[in-house]
């Protein structure tokens, strides 16, 4: 009961933060709103007992993406351009797509329904087998780190390659510049 109340309050704060991020025009404040949004979402993931997802959300949402957005604001300026065009057609497209998506969910089983096919296929195997097979107390962690270990390793390789590529694009030019100055001096 107490946990449900905390969940509802956190969801209300999330909605308020999202609406504020859309309505504010100072991009600096919007970046901070996104940071607050990620923090609240990570707290909700902790409440849902998905600790790994919460760690990822906190590290990416609160840490890295805030830094990236602030770096972009430093380049492009911190005030939003006022939009003069009327955007009725995009609004209609968005509403039609949203209505179609909601119509598509009507066939699906209810959220959290234990008899849904997705909870009957392999989930009982993981839930019953993961403590004895992997020794990890958290089911989500055991799936990410043990059952899907090679998948996670591949993802890490992709991310590492992307990071090395970005460093090769950005870092080399920056290294050369002080070196040139030293030679001219």
């Amino acid at each position, binding site marked *: 009961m*107490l*946990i449900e109340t*905390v969940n509802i*309050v956190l969801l209300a*704060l999330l909605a*308020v*933060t999202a609406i*504020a991020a859309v309505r*504010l025009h100072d991009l*600096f*404040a919007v*970046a*901070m*709103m996104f*940071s*607050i949004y990620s*923090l*609240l979402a*990570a*707290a909700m993931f*902790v*409440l849902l007992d998905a*600790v790994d997802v*919460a*760690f990822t959300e*906190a*590290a990416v949402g*609160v*840490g890295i993406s*805030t*830094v990236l957005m*602030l*770096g972009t*604001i*430093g*380049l492009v300026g911190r005030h939003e351009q006022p939009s003069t065009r009327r955007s009725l057609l995009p609004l209609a497209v968005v509403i039609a797509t949203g209505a179609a998506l909601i119509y598509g969910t009507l066939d699906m089983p209810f959220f959290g329904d234990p008899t849904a096919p997705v909870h009957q296929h392999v989930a009982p195997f993981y839930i019953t087998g993961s403590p004895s097979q992997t020794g990890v107390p958290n089911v989500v962690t055991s799936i990410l780190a043990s059952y899907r270990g090679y998948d996670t390793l591949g993802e890490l390789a992709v991310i590492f390659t992307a990071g090395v590529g970005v460093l090769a694009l950005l870092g080399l*030019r*920056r290294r050369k*510049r*002080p070196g040139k100055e030293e030679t001219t001096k």
Partner: protein
Amino acid sequence: MTLTITLIALLVTMALALIRAIKGPTVYDRILASNALGTKTVLMIAVLGFVVGDPELYIDIALMYVLIGFIGTVAVLKVSEFGNLGQPQSRTDPEDT
């Protein structure tokens, strides 16, 4: 009972800090409000650890959040002070001056 009162107080404080972060006329109001909100979230997770009955795990998570929130705060303060996060063009080395 005590934990319930603490949780309610923390949630109310988070809501107040969020209102200040949205309304805040100056950048510094927003920085302070979002920092306070981060602290309150961390405290709430720690209290929830005692509610759920697994305080060790939740306090570890709370400590991690403090560290990550510090990165965001430092970035926000740096942008508000210098206007950027240190581009190579605008960087002033101590050796140049």
